[in-house]
């Protein structure tokens, strides 16, 4: 007869107590870290938004978040409601409305290209863009931030709304490199057409949605 091999087992309650103890220590640590970094993170996010908006709207000094919905525009509190569109209203030192900034996104070569564009209320045109995030090929797709000829497209890109206030008067279009004729066309970068088109399509989509909601109420933003 062979002796049964003694199997060492730990009672279940000891395991549960240990796990519970470790989990509660860890929980306290996480809550502590969350509480102590929350303000710094919120502050960082605000600075990041401000920096991006100031870049596309030179001269701006203050940014407020708004949301445009079919029923009008309100300051943003909490989440963006269904069918709404978030935008930033930028004011200069004296408190006068400097312009509007909003985000646009289009499918690029590698991933979604997200840009922020600055809109001038007087000329009803886009006066600058900045990239929020992209993973385009360095040296090719990232020319959308560095190529001066491409950026010149966004010095006065026409996004006027049609008289019925339903859509843009002229859809923003990306055209082949060197064939831009109208103020609402974007001259693509030769060799980076996919990324250029992503920017153009994104801006068109965003402006088509935002401008008809925003333009009738633009006076409400002026202090």
């Amino acid at each position, binding site marked *: 007869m062979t002796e049964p091999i003694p199997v060492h087992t730990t009672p279940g309650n000891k*395991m549960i107590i240990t796990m519970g103890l470790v989990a509660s220590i860890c929980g306290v640590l996480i809550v502590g870290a969350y509480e102590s970094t929350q303000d710094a993170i919120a502050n960082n996010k605000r600075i990041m938004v401000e920096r991006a908006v100031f870049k596309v709207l030179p001269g701006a000094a203050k940014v407020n978040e708004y949301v445009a919905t079919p029923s009008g525009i309100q300051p943003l509190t909490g989440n963006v409601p269904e069918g709404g569109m978030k935008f930033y209203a930028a004011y200069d030192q004296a408190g006068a409305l400097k312009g509007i900034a909003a985000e646009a996104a289009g499918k690029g070569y590698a991933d979604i290209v997200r840009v922020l564009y600055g809109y001038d209320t007087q000329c009803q045109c886009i006066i600058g863009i900045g990239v929020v995030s992209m993973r385009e090929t360095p040296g090719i797709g990232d020319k959308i931030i560095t190529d001066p000829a491409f950026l010149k497209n966004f010095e006065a890109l026409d996004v006027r709304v049609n008289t019925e206030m339903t859509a843009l008067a002229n859809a923003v279009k990306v055209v082949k490199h060197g064939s831009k004729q109208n103020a609402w066309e974007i001259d693509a970068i030769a060799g980076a057409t996919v990324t250029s088109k992503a920017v153009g399509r994104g801006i068109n989509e965003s402006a088509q949605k935002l401008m008809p909601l925003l333009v009738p109420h633009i006076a409400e933003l002026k202090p």
Partner: protein
Amino acid sequence: MSANKPVDESITFDTFMEGVWRQNPVFVMVLGMCPTLAVTVSAVNAVSMGLATLFVLVSSCFLVSLIRNLVPKEVRIATYIVIIATFVTLVDYIIQAVSLSLYEALGAFIQLIVVNCIILGRAEAHASKNPPLKAVVNALGMGIGFTIGLLALGATREILGAGKLFGFSLFGEHFQPWVVMVLPPGGFFVLGGWLLLFSFMRSRSEKGVAHE
């Protein structure tokens, strides 16, 4: 309960240097390759990732070592993972508080430190059998070794692929960047190069020992 055989509790220089040199996680053990290849597009990213991993490694090894005699062996892996995940969450918040652009550059790889095999490996192989101080010294060595490995890759890729180091231009206007080096394939090329160098040096020093 795990003290079946007496464990050498003395802390030697080798306790620390094990991770830096003899068992370097990147160049010798070839562990944790996922963040190694993915985030080393620039020296800054590489160092930040290295330091984040170092922090998680040292803190979790300390805690694991502290409670090594309390944890029943059936639930030890689960306990280690909970501890590691806690410190990764901490690092996640801290990096967001320090710099959001860095946070976006490192992306999902901060959260993926949880499954980095260097950390679980250290917790299981070293921290769970050694007193806290020794575990911390060893983890510190491993973390520094990992950071050095990432920095070696990151710096090489940034110099070749962007002509910069830590964001400063090195070669002036006319440098034509070797773009593939900052793309995913470049990660493999550079890693291959470094591994070649290290195994060459190792085989040379082994031969040297044999000759003496």
